[in-house]
């Protein structure tokens, strides 16, 4: 008998000092509506808190929103911590106001996907659904 695969678990959060949470909440709702288990961290999380929650909650991926310009520092720190704690299999993706050259560098560093302003919601949902395939 086939056993249904457990739903994808995603940690969605805001790191750093930035409080702009309109986008991140809409994405959390859209993923939840699409059948994903969403753990929303709330605001003002440190990279350490995010990684520790991600490991405790055994998530497939972490999605972070940063609109304050601190993306270079914060995404890299999360990647670093994931590796240090042996959780390099957890996928990191994100969104925000990220200039093209930073986008490329962050993807090379290991951020799986970055969604900019105006990215269609279904593109993000499809990306998350595709994580298991």
């Amino acid at each position, binding site marked *: 008998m086939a056993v249904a695969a457990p739903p994808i678990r995603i940690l969605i959060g805001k790191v*750093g*000092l*930035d*409080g*702009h*949470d*309109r986008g991140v*909440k*809409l994405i*959390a*709702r859209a993923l939840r509506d699409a059948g994903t288990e969403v753990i*929303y961290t*709330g*605001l003002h999380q*440190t990279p350490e808190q995010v990684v520790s929650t991600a490991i405790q909650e055994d998530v497939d991926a972490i999605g972070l929103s940063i*609109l*304050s*310009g*601190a993306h*270079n*520092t*914060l995404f890299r720190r999360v990647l670093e911590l994931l590796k240090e704690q042996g959780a390099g299999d957890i996928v990191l993706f994100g969104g925000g*106001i990220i*200039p*093209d050259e930073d986008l490329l560098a962050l993807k090379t560093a290991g951020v799986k996907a970055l969604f*900019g*302003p*105006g990215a*269609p*919601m*279904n593109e993000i949902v499809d990306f998350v659904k595709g994580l298991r395939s």
Partner: protein
Amino acid sequence: MQERKPRFTSLSGLEINRVYSRDDLNGWSPENDLGAPGEFPYTRGVYPTMYRSRLWTMRQFAGFGSADDTNRRFKYLLQHGQIGLSVAFDMPTLMGIDADDVRAHGEVGRCGVAISSLADMDRLFEDIPLDQVTTSMTINGPAAVIFAMYLAVAEKRGISVERVGGTLQNDILKEYIAQKEWLFPPEPSLRLITDTIAYCAKQVPKWHPVSISGYHIREAGSTAVQELAFTLYDGLTYVEAAVKAGLAVDSFAPQLSFFFNVHNDLFEEIAKFRAARRLWAREMEHRHHPKDPRSLQLRCHAQTAGCSLTAQQPMNNVVRTTLQALAAVLGGTQSLHTNSMDETLALPTEEAVKLALRTQQIIAHETEITNSIDPLGGSYHVESLTNRLEEGARDYFRRLDEMGGMVNAIQRGFPQRELLDASQRYQREIERKERIVVGVSDYVEPEERHIPTLKIGPEVEQEQIARLSDLRKSRDPFKMAGVLEELQEAASCSENVMPYLIEAVKAKATLGEICAAFTEVFGTYREPVVL
């Protein structure tokens, strides 16, 4: 003939009829609901001559990198005909954190200017005559501290604070609702705001101690009605707090100001400004019975809607901003910021911000729309929309009154949930193509053209940390400890903290140290998570 859509709605979802006539204004009378410019209920404007006497203040919000970087940008804007200054602070400053705090790592100077001490504030305004410009400062949690720094700089230059004019945003309620930059729980935050209101009423008569802001509420996804309702209700909450603290309403209410968003729906936005003035006048009259008519007048700043801009085909943003600016002027704003076309990509370049300023200058000097006051007054459509916006806001007022006021409503997550639901509705309308966003949902171009953007290097953070380190070595530690202790004592009782803050910044206490001292007394805030 077949119409394009089964239903036509405003951007905020109000159903719009094919045509409006006298039948849509039942019960409306020009005497009660319109009045003359400069007269109750101020629907047509707060001044009898409006732009025929004085144009609005062109005030571009600016700040990035170090105090010196932003000082250069201020001078550039003043050279190109801007009249008022408006400071954008970086995230650590907005959160009351020094640049050398671990939580500030990567954020210093990124989305505004880094100000950690009185010395930074002094450099920010170097060679700028503080008695000749007016300065708006967009800061909330630590607003009183930043205000103390500004006043101390004026004092150092021999300018009496009586002659200093400007605006402090200092609106914490909309932070809990929308922008989420808070330091302390609501009660002590309201007390700090009341302290600045009381201090300005006595000492700094040309200053607006609070700019009650709908801008961020709208950016977080609200409708026009919600923006109007929550903003004005926040304003009433501040008035109530100040009256409770023993201030006479006429001693401070004329110094309050407002700040609205101006979005894409031209007529809805014009109606919003008109409804705001009428609703504020009526509610202040009804709730507080002021004797000074200025206590009834809603004066405001406006900013074009950042959330309406697109990263795709950024030149289109110039057109969006122009139309939004037109609505703000037709709505009778006292001050205006026009967004630059590159602001979905980064903070604006000099060229982009100059074009945004020129947009205002063209509206002011070439369109002739400033000749006659409230030119759309009496339009069946605009008057009907004005009525509906006022009624919609009143419905929210009743619900908020029933909940026991805004602080209780925030603790229950009510305005937060209303905003989230509204922004989700809007997002779905775009996804279902019920609304078109040019260049994003339609008229998409496969190859995007790139425009130059402003870069902020990592050296900004390193230099700011070095400056702080020098500052900490240069001061008298005993004096510092003394002023912070006195500040905490004042904060623990009901004494006005402003004089103590001015002493603390003069003794070179940093923003982070002062906010940490406050936190020991006031505690911190945890928001109810609404999803």
